[in-house]
């Protein structure tokens, strides 16, 4: 049994390790809907992959990264609130993805697997490219960590201090897009945002510094993966939702702890 879920387990652990720091910024910047939008657009990526006969993951990466770039460009115009803009892009891409998938004749697409993740579809070769991607993401995150914190605190101040604000934001969004693409394999498009926001939210009460919060977020996320997969094996529940439920459980446990600050 363990051989079957081992690749998924490894990918899940890698995913949540890197989701800790990247997701913390979503919580700090109040942009969880941005993560959702990326996740919804991932389905369009699968459809694109099908139409171009590419590996779905390639399509997902192309589409999520494009959407990230599109959003950070569009958010500069102020006639539409970024909230509404995210809604339009999220549902527009999701709908387009669903329509395209249905048009492709002769191909049966496992929609449930796309939405909720399909652990059995993960292979050992997947762990290699996921590991490579994660390593790259970790290095980039380390490099943009302090600049990104400065931008989060006040973008005008960051700009006045000479930081290339738009460029760093864009890099961060592309990192998120890549993370969503990876996470889709494990927990699916609908639940990936949960792994980006629940662990950092749970880590808040345990942490005194941004770095501690990112670290605890990674640990909470990784524990959720292990707990969720065990539960899934034990009770034969779908893995993605079980992982997210585990994260919720760990989050509520942190609520019982007195606030640090």
């Amino acid at each position, binding site marked *: 049994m363990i051989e079957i879920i081992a690749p998924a387990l490894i990918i899940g652990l890698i995913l949540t390790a890197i989701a800790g720091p990247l997701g913390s910024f979503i919580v700090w910047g109040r942009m969880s809907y941005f993560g959702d939008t990326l996740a919804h657009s991932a389905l369009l990526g699968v459809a694109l992959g099908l139409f171009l006969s590419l590996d779905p993951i390639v399509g997902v990466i192309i589409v999520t990264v494009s959407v990230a770039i599109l959003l950070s460009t569009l958010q500069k115009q102020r006639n539409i609130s970024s909230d509404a803009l995210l809604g339009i892009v999220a549902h527009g891409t999701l709908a387009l993805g669903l329509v395209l998938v249905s048009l492709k004749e002769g191909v049966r697409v496992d929609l449930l697997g796309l939405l909720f993740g399909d652990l059995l579809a993960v292979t050992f070769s997947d762990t290699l490219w996921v590991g490579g991607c994660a390593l790259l993401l970790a290095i980039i995150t380390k490099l943009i960590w302090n600049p990104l914190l400065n931008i989060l605190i006040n973008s005008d101040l960051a700009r*006045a201090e000479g930081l290339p604000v738009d460029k760093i934001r864009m890099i961060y969004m592309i990192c998120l897009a890549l993370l969503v693409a990876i996470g889709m394999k494990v927990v699916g498009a609908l639940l990936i945002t949960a792994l980006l926001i629940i662990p950092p939210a749970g880590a808040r009460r345990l942490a005194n*510094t941004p770095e501690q919060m990112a670290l605890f977020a990674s640990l909470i996320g990784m524990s959720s993966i292990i707990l969720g997969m065990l539960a899934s094996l034990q009770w034969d529940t779908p893995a993605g939702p079980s992982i997210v439920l585990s994260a919720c459980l760990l989050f509520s446990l942190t609520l019982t702890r007195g606030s640090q600050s």
Partner: protein
Amino acid sequence: MTTPIVQLDDICLNIRGQSLLNHINMALNPGEIMTVIGPNGAGKSSLLKIVLGLYKPSSGKRRIHKGLRIGYMPQKLQIDQSLPLTVQRFLALAGNPNRQDIEAALHDVNALQTITRPIQSISGGEFQRVLLARALLRNPTLLVLDEPAQGVDLHGQQELYQLLAGIRDKRQCAILMVSHDLHFVMARTDQVICLNQHVCCSGTADSVANHPEYLALFDQGIEKDFAVYTHHHDHHHNIHGDVVKDETSSSHKQCSGHHHD
């Protein structure tokens, strides 16, 4: 003759068809203190943003001295509660100063007691001074302050202005600030610019106060609406808001700090 560290030549700024600044000329010399005053919507913050390089002028030229280091103190800065950040870490983000530098900067602004506290928990006045400390950590040749005395009472303003004058004398940096008040500016100001989309008048504080364009900003003299009430306190509040007994009355018996004749 000294070359100005910042010079604006005939700057105009239009944003979405709205003219915010018209034909602004100004020059700030090294070590000089300049205060910008003007009614709401006069474009004071926009002018600062032009100087900071955050806004590109629609026409005109901004010249800055080579090697100019700007320390910027924004008007408002909201840090989300979800970000665990102590004052020390906040200051450390300004380009990796060491612990001694941070302590020295906090000491310079009388805010050393906040160093280990979460930044969201310090008072408004303390926060202003922590922001000032952050600007100082960049070892600036120009300090740009957007309404530094906003929301601070007169005593607090007095102490802030003394602090700024001391900083200027000690570090020889120029100071450009926006005053929230049309009538009170720092006495040590070398130049006042009265702005109402264009430069109404400029010069020393005295010359501006008597300039017809400045007076024309008010339909009637302010004496009509304002009177001076002279207090007789036996104490004052220091920059932290704590009660400080005045020396002359230190021999008095403690009478809850409020002894009025």
